[in-house]
Every structure is written in C-alpha cells, then in structure tokens.
C-alpha cells in the first residue's frame, strides 16, 4: 500500500481523526495567540506560562478537579508573580521570569513524581495526540473558540494596545486589564494545546507559525491569517510525518514548524536571505554591464574597440571582459567584429542613457552638494547603480538645463543624443603657439583633476601651448606659464581657435 493510500486508510479510524482534528485546532489557536505574542515580544513569557501550568495540572490531579482549572490558575498566578517581582525587586523581566516559572515547574515535577506515573508526566510535558478523547477534543475546541473569539471581537483594541500602548493608555483604553486578559488567553491557549503537544513544546507552536508568516506580511491581520495557514499545515504535516516514520507527533510538529520557518527565512520573496543575496548579485551584474556600456560609449569614435582596451578601461581581466561582451552581444547591445566591439543602435541608446545618468549625478553633486570635482566621478559611479531609474529625470529637473558635466563632457539628452564638439585636440598635441579653449578633461584620476584645478586648466579656460618639453608641455594659462607633465596634458581636450 502506498503511503498516500495508507494515510487515507488511517483516516478511517476515529482516534486518528480526533488526533488530527486536535492538532489542527491547536495549530490554529496557537497561531492566533502566538501572533500577538510575537509582535508584543512576549515569546519568552509564553514559554514561562507554559511551564508554570504544570503545578496546576498536578494539583488538579491531586484534588480530582479538571486539569483546566488548575492550569489556568497557576498559569495566571505565575504571570502576575512575574510582574510583581519585576515591580518590587531590582530584577528585570528576564530574571524574574526565569526564577518564577522554573520554580513553578519544579513544584509541579515534585508533586507529579509523588502521585502519578512517569507516563502521565511525559504526556503532560510532550503531549500525546493519539490519546485525545472526544471529551478532550471538545475542551480544546471550546478553549480555542474562546481565545479566537475574544481576539476577533476585541481586535482593534488589541491592535492599538499591541502597537502603541502609550497611545492606547492615553486615550483611555484599560491597558492593565487588556494585559491581564492577554495573559489569561495565553494560559487558555496552552491548556488547549496540552494534549497535542504538551507544555514544553507548545511555545514552538505559538511562535514558529507567526514568525514564518512575518516573513511575508506587512500587516497584522494578514500575519495572523498567514500564521493560521502555516499552523494548520504544520500540524497536519507533522502529524502525518510522525505517522509515516513512527516518531512522536509533538516533536515532529515542532520540527516541521521550524522547517517552515527556515524555508521562509531563506526564500521569502522580499525578506528571504537567499532572495536578498540573489538580488544583490543581480544588481552587481547589472552594474557591471552598465560600466561596460559606458566605457564603450566613451571609447569609440567611429572605430570598434578592441576587447583588451575595453578591459583595461573598466579595470577588468581580458578573460572576464570577453564573457561580458558575449552577454552584451546576446542582449543585442553590441556586435563583435574582428577589430573589436561595437555598440549597436540599441546599445548606443542604452549606453547614452547610462552616461546621461552618470553625468547628471556629477553635475548635481558639484552644483548642489558642493562636492569637489575630483571626487564626483567615483561617487556618481556608485550612485547611478543604486538609485532607481526614474530618479534620473528628477535629477535633470533639479540641475536644470545643462549641457556638460563638471569635467566638460557633454550630457546626452533623454533620447540618447549627444552633442559632439566641433573639433577637439589633446593639449599635448597642440602646435606651439596654438591657442584654444579647454572643452573637457578626463575625469578618472583624482590627482590629475586636483592638479588641473590648481593650475586653472578647467573647461572654458583659454590656454596657449608655449612649447613642448621632454617630459610634457609648457603652457600659458591665465597670467602665467606652467609646465604640465605629459600624462596630465593627455587628459585635457582643447578646441583650437578663438
């Protein structure tokens, strides 16, 4: 008989149906109550109350009372005791909790060890869902209904109290009473869950499904619904796995609950660890493509760019560059020719847009943020990858109509057109006594930029080449003459003429 057939056959037995139903009810009620415990950061308090019901159960056995009564009484007493210890001694909540609930728990152990067999103790601690009778089921269902019903009825008050207890109190909500009500409901939830998972494991059913749901929801009511879904799934899956593999059902349910949480923490669409890592990688890959496009845009005059040169420009290894180029080709943004890489029309437009964004950022940083021009290139590099695309037009509006970036390079239009300067020569290639206006400068080297600023060789300035020198050129700019090293001279573009 296949597993599924076996499970279907198992449903033919009343005790299996009762057990499954008990598990589902427990999963639901714990999810609802646990959602509030989660958002109020009361998880540990839930654990404390669950341990503290043990002496109540034991004393109820002793006196022949229904164990519900005993459990509720000691659960609530312990919660109150924790509050009292906190208020009247120097102990903080965690120490007060630990002290009281373990004392209560030990008291319970002591009493039970004198009056009942270890089997009962084991079942109280860890649950035995198979032993759930119809009477137990009714009790669980009624307790559960009280908890869920109260929370549903008072939902908006509980929401306000949980989110902003200060406002709740200040507008007159009886916060103290709500606090005790929630403690009482927690105790009732634990009593309902006693048979299925026992008091040691119940805190997992209280916390894991809401924690899982929290990975997917921004709003409390959705969190609660999600928690219920997860809680029911946990109970059912746990029960069936315990059936198939002959393991204790309480522990299996808890493990399944933890497993769901792990899956959610890793893979939840917005908050999952794996998802976020993937998105980061995706962003990094996209940034890389953008850098290549920009580099191609800058490099090519009319001729294609050899891959090696492209690699050098983006500071990448040639092998890596080849892979990126291939990807760009697949995307239809470049074509590979024997002489090198060339942008396609689509590629040109895409590259121009990225260049536009970059240069707009540079303009913004210099004009509005007062950043020195030797720092803006690196800053813009980072900003353009991080900022959303729609920001680009906002930027354009903010900086106003600008033709060039701070280094003189033309800013492409929104359509991808870029103005080409009429005639541009490198400063180092000027003829002696030739004059011209600086149009733009290379912006990658901060040292060069600082030197240019210090010497006054900035876009818009008139400059005259005096004479070439062994290691550079001598130029006249402003009032005086200065010697410019070759590599600096090769960073300055001049438009000759008046």
């Amino acid at each position, binding site marked *: 008989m296949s597993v599924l057939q076996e499970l279907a056959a198992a449903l033919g037995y009343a005790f299996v149906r009762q057990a499954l139903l008990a598990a589902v009810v427990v999963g639901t009620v714990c999810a609802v109550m646990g959602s509030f415990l989660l*958002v109020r950061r009361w998880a540990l308090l839930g654990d404390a109350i669950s341990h503290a019901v043990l002496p109540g159960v034991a004393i109820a056995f002793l006196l022949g009372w229904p164990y519900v009564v005993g459990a509720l009484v000691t659960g609530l007493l312990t919660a109150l005791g924790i509050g009292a210890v906190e208020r009247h001694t120097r102990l903080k909540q965690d120490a007060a909790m630990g002290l009281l609930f373990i004392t209560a728990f030990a008291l319970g152990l002591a009493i039970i060890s004198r009056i009942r067999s270890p089997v009962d103790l084991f079942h109280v601690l860890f649950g035995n869902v198979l032993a759930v009778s119809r009477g137990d089921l009714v009790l669980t269902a009624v307790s559960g209904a009280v908890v869920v019903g109260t929370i549903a009825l008072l939902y908006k*008050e509980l929401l*306000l109290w*949980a*989110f902003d207890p200060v*406002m709740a109190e200040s507008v*007159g909500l009886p916060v103290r009473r709500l606090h005790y009500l929630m403690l009482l409901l927690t105790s009732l939830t634990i009593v309902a869950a006693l048979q299925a998972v026992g008091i040691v494991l119940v805190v997992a059913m209280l916390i894991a499904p809401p924690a899982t749901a929290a990975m997917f929801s921004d709003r*409390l009511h959705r969190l609660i619904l999600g928690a219920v879904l997860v809680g029911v799934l946990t109970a059912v899956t746990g029960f069936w796995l315990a059936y198939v593999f002959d393991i204790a059902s309480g522990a299996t349910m808890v493990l399944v609950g933890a497993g769901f949480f792990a899956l959610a923490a890793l893979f939840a669409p917005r908050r999952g660890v794996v998802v976020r890592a993937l998105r980061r990688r995706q962003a990094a890959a996209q940034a890389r493509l953008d850098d290549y496009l920009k580099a191609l845009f800058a490099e090519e005059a009319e001729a294609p760019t050899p891959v090696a040169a492209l690699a050098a420009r983006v500071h990448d290894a040639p092998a890596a560059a080849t892979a990126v180029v291939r990807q760009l080709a697949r995307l239809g943004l470049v074509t590979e020719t024997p002489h090198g890489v060339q942008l396609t029309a689509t590629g040109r437009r895409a590259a121009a847009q990225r260049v536009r964004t970059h240069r707009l950022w540079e303009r913004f940083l210099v004009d509005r943020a007062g950043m020195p021009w030797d720092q803006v290139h690196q800053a813009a590099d980072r900003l353009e990858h991080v900022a959303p695309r729609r920001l680009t037009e906002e930027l354009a509006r903010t900086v106003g109509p600008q033709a060039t970036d701070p280094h003189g390079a033309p800013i492409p239009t929104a359509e991808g057109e870029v103005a080409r300067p009429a005639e541009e020569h490198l400063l180092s290639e000027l003829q002696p006594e030739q004059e011209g206006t600086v149009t733009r400068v290379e912006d990658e080297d901060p040292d060069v930029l600082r030197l240019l600023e210090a010497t006054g060789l900035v876009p818009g300035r008139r400059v005259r080449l005096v004479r070439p020198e062994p290691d550079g050129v001598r130029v006249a700019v402003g009032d005086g003459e200065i010697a410019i090293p070759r590599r600096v001279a090769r960073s300055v573009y001049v438009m000759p003429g008046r």
Partner: protein
Amino acid sequence: MTPAGAATPAPAATPAVEVTNLSVTYDSHPVLLGVSVQVGPGEVVGVVGPNGAGKSTLFRALVGLVPLTTGTVRLLGGPVERGRRWVAYLPQREALDWDFPVVVWDAVLMGRFPHLPWGRRPGAADRAVAARALEALGIADLRDRHIGELSGGQQQRVLLARALAQEARVLLLDEPFIGVDAATEATILALLPRLRAEGRTVLVVDHDLVRVRETYDRVLLLNQRLVAAGPPAAVLTEELLRATYAGRLAPLEAMVGAEGTEGGP
C-alpha cells in the same frame, strides 16, 4: 515680563488645557513642581526647557499616563478621563515599535479607534477621515508602505496624520522636528496655523529657539517649575532663559544675542 502666566490674558473660552498646581514625583525625585497654566482653544504653544525639565512628563500628566502628586488637570473643560480621547499625544519617535506589522494606512486609521465603541469596526466615514488626514500631510502615496520603511520625516507625518484622523482637539507634540527633513518641517509648520484656525490647541516641545521665536503664540519656559509663560518676544529674554537653563546657556547666548532683543549687553 513676570512668570507663571499672571500677566498673560486668559483665553476667552473655556481653556482646552487647564493645569492647576501640578506636581509629579518619581521615586521621591521631583519632576514637576507646582505648574499652573491655561492653554485656551485655538492656541499654538511652544514648551521650552533643558533636558530633564519635565516637559515630556507634563505631556504625560495631561493624558493621565503618570500619577499626579498634587494638583489637577482639566481637559476641554472636564476631567481627564472624559477629554482624553480628543487629545493626541505624540511622544518622541523612538518610543514606537516601527517594526510592527502595520502599513501607513493602518497606523493612521488607528486614530479613529478612540471614538469607536468596543467591538465596532471602522466604517466608511472613518475611512474617509483617515484618507483626508493622509492627504493633509502629503503621504497619501505612502499608504501601503510598511512603517519601518519610512524616513524620519515620513514617520512624523504618519503620527500627525493619525492625530488628524483622531480629530484631536488638543495635540501634544514632543520634539516633532528632530530628525526630519526640511520638507516635513515646512509641512508641520504650515499645519499649525490650520489647526489654530480650526480652534484646536497644539503644545509643542521645541528646542530650536529661533524657530520658537517665529512660530508660537505663546511660549512656556519649563524647568520643573513654570519659569515663564507668554509671547515669545517677552519670554525669550536672556534673563529668563538663564533662569530656565541654569548653566547650559552658552550656545544659546549666541542665538539670543544674534537675533537681537532687549536686555543683554
């Protein structure tokens, strides 16, 4: 100018907030001593004082969050218990749990809860009020955003929108300008005259004396006691500020001196 509001003309209608001889003590440390003041409807009042002066405590006393050692508080002409649902107390933003699973809309809609009886859900009218509040604070496009994803200024707007949704007659704002962007500050400053025009009362704890001078109808100088109460020009004198800040005046001297008032060499 004499302190304790004696020379301040009492507001014409029943005061929105009436404090008489209020004292609050924590663990035998006095926090507020004998504070008496009346803030009438339609007033925007600044509360100024050093750290630990009891400004936050004063607000908390107004909404019944701290026990009064002596004195009385009356809200909107009646006892605190009756009036407090018309009072919006906005503590400093750190006090809130911004990780809580609510979006902006949920938070603002909560402003309606004080007026709804137990078990009743907000109706269409309530939702309309909340929506208008979002518009007034310019955050309508943020309504589905989780509150943890908001900037400081946006958070402050949410809290104010919630107070508007509450249709609060009295707003108590504790340092609303800290950590907000210029646009939000401008929005808040633009909101104040509107509230005044609607006959609402706003008390604002504010530390920026320049803004205080320009913004508020009256200023309360508080340092455990009410040092002075009156129009900013009258109250923000070096002598009174010195009495209020007792030793922490150095950086403020420059401000007061630069703006140029009477008094001071």
